[in-house]
């Protein structure tokens, strides 16, 4: 059984007990435990089930590379699936449940799949579920969804209870990894004066060195780590962050750090995760190495663990995995585990060393301790079901004939070490195959490069393939200094402290154990534990013609689980290369993509959730709308009132009331969102003549003119009223959505094409609150406010004037988008709300009625005014809309003029704007098409037009619409049929688009 030993555990504090539950069972651990170490201390070796076969799974590793020990963590709004027990720090009150099992972890029905594994090989799903086609949706997919998957998705109604944030950081040198190599590299880089940021993903510094032993400068690795950390902490140019993973490296020295602030203390205030968005001149990855499993039958049975992980549990947390541990290895490092276990008083019945030549000094030490060492031997298979009961020993060079069986309850395996090259590779760093170490290591001279073609990533220590303490420290010292130099600092040549450790014999690559294992053994030899990919699956893929490692990955799902193949990658591609008869470097690796381990969605979102999900732009009168029950419509990032329902009114009734009030008496509209752009300079008139289709330079100061703006391709992009302020100055109104883009459009032309014209522009949209006072009583209200002459003579239609109204400084425009007598009053935004309130109060005698965007739309549609975005969609030119009157014939040029002369643009068959009245007075459906005879090449019904705007007109008491129709203006009075979503067609008569006051008398009183 796995258990807590009476002593030991350099990271645990046995004076502080913590309570937690696993599958509802109460357990205790110590401060400093991970969830994995605490579960193991409670003899909870079984932590989950695998993805495909539902095989029982215990932890195989002790850190970020763990594929098996994934749990559902937390409850309710803090529930999170697929959390690695090995990197989850224990806290008081932690609740975890196991995943992917039914009905329980111990008795799982899905585990039947394991007995079906002969008929569930790689590609089974692809082959099986192709036919019959209709079965996929109704039979196969629901079945697979039920049986597959790991953790549960959080409840759809739950809301993340935590907060998250981003943090921008700039540094000369970023060092990722706080092991001895990272500390060493950070130190030499920092000694040059460079700003250094050092990130460590775990809560502890020093990495593996304190567990693995040796001496650094005469000190234990632990003491050296503490001393070096203290030195770094004392340097003002060094920033140290533990619990912060270097998640990804991107172009131009950009890197992401993932800081887990309160995962280990959920009740602490502050954000849970912080995403560091780092710009570094140089990045040093000191990310260490990961031990590889060995591929032998039954290597997934709980109790089989990486040798280094077993050592970690023993030394770091004082936890043993079993009483009798067999060690299986192809290298010397695993002997450290045997020796450590023996020293802790545990039994090591045998070390099975695949190498015929055995190990070096460590082997001698183990033998001297009385441990049996079997050279040239392998594990034929592990015995046991939900946990190990023994191993069958065979010749490594054979097929798996059993020579001996050794009873044990744990197996420590080591297939050698692979440098963690992920961050080096994220941005394009190349790899070389190292024959001696049997691993991929960063290729010297093939680093990711910056905008100047210079390397900006370097690798230090074990991540660079330096597997001895002395070697990795020297490499790290040099790499840190070189990074500082590349960042522009003068780094002294640094010599690393002397390190001592025992000499090791070379590893012998073992990709299958035994090397000639029979099929029944190969199909129990796991490569990818989480996704259930075995040696036999990869070999099958090769036989079926999958030669590319990327294709094999996707076919077998090797390395596609949440651990992204940290343990399985090298073993898998070595298996593939053997099956293909190619060398490992020929086969190559799959692509390493960020993040290194999954990061939370919350960290990516940062502060952008809840009230900060998206900025909402508010006019100065926004609060009044809110207080008066406005139903909101998003318009760009603005919120505008759609209508103001009163009492029991629905929205349609409110709109009818609002429209009638405007037509009959007095309405009020918050038009503040309309764009207002000042264009000033000696060439302003000439500039506007180029921007608008009509002539603006002839406009007199004090007057307004409606104008159309087109793109250089001729399409209508915006419209609005231009007011000439003085000889040099114009104010251009744009649509609400067009303010920023039209301003940018103006600046682009000024800066790139007409850079020598004397024109300045400024977007003053937000300087003013703009209020439209609309309706037959509008003038009476303004006269009641007093302060300026607003008579027809003093302020005629399409004129503007500065003055005061009711004590407010205003600029009043006599313009109308409704067809009624209308004044748009602009006042500095700080006065906006007060002016609105005053208008409401003084207008009460005429039942002044604030109206929203829908009434605005109905009013303009009754008048046949077009709306950008309704009548236009990026393919419509002004000529299509019958706006030829607003296109100057005199001007030599304007933006869009040339394009509008293209044959396609002058084609008489272009659909043109008309009004549409249904025969039964109903409202045409939005976007409905007018059908024509026959069908097109795709068998679809031919069309001859479409609806662009359609409303119920309260003024006319019937539906009205505008639309683009083939030869429309020539077909007045003709009835055509429009589609309806329910299958029938609706007849509508083609009419003039101006439904109300065609002479324009009402607005010109």
């Amino acid at each position, binding site marked *: 059984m796995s258990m807590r030993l009476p002593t030991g555990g350099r990271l645990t504090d046995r004076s502080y007990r913590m309570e937690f539950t696993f599958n509802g069972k109460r357990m205790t651990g110590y401060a400093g435990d991970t969830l994995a170490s605490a579960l193991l201390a409670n003899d909870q070796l079984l932590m989950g089930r695998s993805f495909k076969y539902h095989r029982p799974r215990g932890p195989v590793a002790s850190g970020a590379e763990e594929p098996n020990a994934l749990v559902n963590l937390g409850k309710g709004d803090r529930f999170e699936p697929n959390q690695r027990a090995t990197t989850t720090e224990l806290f008081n009150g932690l609740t975890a449940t196991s995943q992917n099992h039914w009905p329980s972890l111990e008795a799982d029905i899905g585990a039947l799949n394991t007995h079906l594994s002969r008929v569930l090989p790689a590609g089974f799903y692809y082959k099986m579920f192709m036919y019959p086609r209709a079965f996929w949706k109704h039979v196969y997919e629901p079945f697979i969804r039920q049986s597959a998957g790991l953790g549960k998705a959080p409840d759809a109604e739950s809301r993340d209870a935590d907060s998250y944030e981003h943090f921008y950081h700039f540094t000369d040198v970023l060092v990722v990894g706080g092991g001895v190599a990272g500390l060493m590299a950070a130190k030499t880089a920092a000694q040059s004066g460079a700003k250094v940021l050092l990130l460590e993903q775990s809560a502890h510094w020093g990495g593996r060195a304190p567990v693995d032993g040796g001496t650094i400068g005469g000190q234990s690795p632990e003491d050296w780590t503490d001393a070096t950390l203290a030195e770094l902490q004392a340097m003002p140019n060094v920033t140290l962050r533990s619990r912060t993973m270097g998640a990804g490296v991107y172009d131009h020295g950009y890197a992401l750090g993932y800081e887990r602030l309160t995962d280990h203390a959920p009740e602490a205030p502050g954000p849970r995760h912080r995403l560091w968005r780092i710009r570094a001149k140089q990045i040093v990855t000191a990310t260490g190495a990961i031990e590889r499993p060995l591929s032998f039958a039954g290597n997934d049975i709980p109790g089989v663990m990486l040798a280094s992980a077993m050592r970690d549990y023993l030394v770091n947390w004082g936890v043993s995995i079993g009483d009798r541990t067999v060690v299986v290895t192809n290298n010397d490092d695993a002997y450290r585990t045997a020796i450590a276990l023996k020293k802790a008083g545990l039994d090591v019945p045998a070390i099975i060393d695949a190498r015929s030549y055995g190990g070096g000094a460590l082997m001698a030490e183990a033998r001297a301790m009385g441990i049996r060492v079997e050279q040239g031997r392998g594990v034929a298979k592990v015995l046991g079901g939900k946990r190990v009961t023994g191993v069958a020993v065979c010749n490594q060079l054979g097929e798996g004939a059993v020579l001996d069986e050794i009873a044990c309850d744990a197996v420590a395996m080591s297939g050698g070490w692979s440098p963690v090259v992920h961050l080096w590779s994220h941005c394009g760093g190349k790899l070389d195959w190292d024959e001696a170490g049997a691993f991929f290591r960063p290729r010297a001279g093939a680093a990711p490069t910056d905008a100047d073609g210079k390397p900006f990533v370097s690798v230090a220590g074990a991540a660079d393939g330096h597997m001895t303490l002395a070697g990795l420290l020297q490499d790290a010292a040099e790499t840190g200094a070189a990074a500082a130099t590349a960042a522009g600092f003068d780094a002294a040549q640094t010599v690393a402290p002397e390190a001592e450790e025992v000499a090791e014999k070379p590893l012998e690559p073992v990709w299958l154990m035994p090397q000639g294992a029979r099929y029944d053994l190969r199909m129990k030899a796991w490569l990818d534990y989480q996704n259930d990919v075995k040696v036999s699956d990869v070999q099958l893929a090769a036989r079926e013609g999958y030669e590319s490692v990327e294709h094999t990955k996707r076919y077998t799902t090797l390395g596609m689980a949440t651990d992204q193949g940290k343990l399985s990658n090298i073993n898998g591609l070595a298996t593939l290369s053997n099956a293909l008869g190619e060398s490992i470097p020929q086969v190559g690796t799959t692509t390493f993509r960020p993040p290194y381990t999954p990061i939370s969605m919350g960290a990516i979102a940062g502060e952008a959730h809840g009230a900060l999900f998206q900025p*909402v*732009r508010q006019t100065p009168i926004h609060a009044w709308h809110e207080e008066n029950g406005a139903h909101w419509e998003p318009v760009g990032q603005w919120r505008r009132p759609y209508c103001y329902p009163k009492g029991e009114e629905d929205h349609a009734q409110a709109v009818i009331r609002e429209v009638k009030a405007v037509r009959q008496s007095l309405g009020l509209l918050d038009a503040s969102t309309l764009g207002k752009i000042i264009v000033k300079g000696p060439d302003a008139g000439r500039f506007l003549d180029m921007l608008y289709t009509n002539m603006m330079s002839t406009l007199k100061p004090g007057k307004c003119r409606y104008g159309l703006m087109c793109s250089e391709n001729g399409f209508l992009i915006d419209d609005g009223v231009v007011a000439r302020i003085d000889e040099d100055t114009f104010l251009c109104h744009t649509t609400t959505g067009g303010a920023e883009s039209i301003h940018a459009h103006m600046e682009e032309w000024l800066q790139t094409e007409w850079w020598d014209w004397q024109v*300045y522009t*400024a977007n003053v949209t*937000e*300087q*003013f609150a703009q209020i439209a006072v609309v309706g037959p009583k509008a003038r009476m209200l303004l006269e009641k406010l007093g302060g300026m002459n607003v008579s027809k003579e003093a302020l005629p239609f399409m004129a503007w004037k500065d003055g005061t109204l009711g004590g407010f400084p205003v600029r009043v425009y006599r313009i109308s988008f409704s067809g009624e007598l209308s004044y748009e009053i602009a006042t500095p935004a700080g006065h906006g709300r007060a002016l609105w309130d005053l208008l409401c109060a003084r207008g009460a005698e005429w039942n002044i009625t604030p109206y929203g965007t829908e009434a605005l739309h109905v009013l303009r549609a009754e008048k046949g005014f077009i709306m950008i975005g309704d009548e236009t969609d990026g393919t419509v030119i002004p000529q299509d809309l019958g706006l030829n009157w607003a296109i100057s014939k005199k001007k030599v040029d304007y933006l869009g003029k040339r394009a509008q002369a293209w044959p396609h643009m002058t084609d008489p068959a272009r659909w043109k704007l008309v009004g549409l009245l249904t025969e039964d007075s109903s409202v045409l459906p939005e976007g409905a098409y007018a059908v024509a005879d026959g069908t097109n090449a795709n068998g679809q019904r031919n069309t001859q037009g479409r609806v662009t705007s359609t409303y119920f007109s309260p003024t006319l008491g019937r539906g009205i619409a505008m639309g683009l129709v083939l030869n429309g203006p020539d077909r007045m009075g003709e009835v055509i049929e429009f589609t309806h979503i329910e299958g029938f067609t609706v007849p509508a008569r083609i009419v003039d688009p101006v439904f109300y006051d065609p002479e324009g008398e009402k607005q010109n009183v």
Partner: protein
Amino acid sequence: MSEPVSALRRARYAGFVTVEEAGLQGMVQIRGDLSSDAFTSAVSDAAGVPMPGLREASLDGRNGLLWMSPDELMLLCPYPEADRAMARLQATLSDTHHLALNVSDARAMFTLQGNGVRDVLAKLAPVDMAPDAFRPGMLRRTRLAQVAAAFWLRSDTQAEVICFRSVAPYMMELLSTAARPGSAVGLHGG
């Protein structure tokens, strides 16, 4: 005459940094040829402060000049004086092509006070806030989270932020969230 109001009427939040909407602030947007001595001396006279350098804020109490772009400056003054400052400038530059507009109502201004001002801004803006990289008197036109903004430091413990008036509520919520107790990063004296 009605009294104008600022976007948030001096809303205030006390976190590890104190965030306050600064109330009404006179602002005149000025565009012109920054390489012309006639133009820059007129602007400097109108503002009562020296010309700022590239990406700098030249400040004297409530008066100041902000470098906004290679052809744009922002004049700061007490709110009631903006029209006068603009008129003075227009009179001096009557024969020089330029633009001067009172935009005092178009924007909102916030003050941040406390040791952690650099940390608060570094959570929201892609700007190097290290004391040796961003010093008092420097200015950045950038973004804070999802909205355009400009900011500068008056001292190592006081920053000022301007943004468009329509997003003042968003900015207040944003700065307050970044200044929430327990969220100090502790990197730049927070």
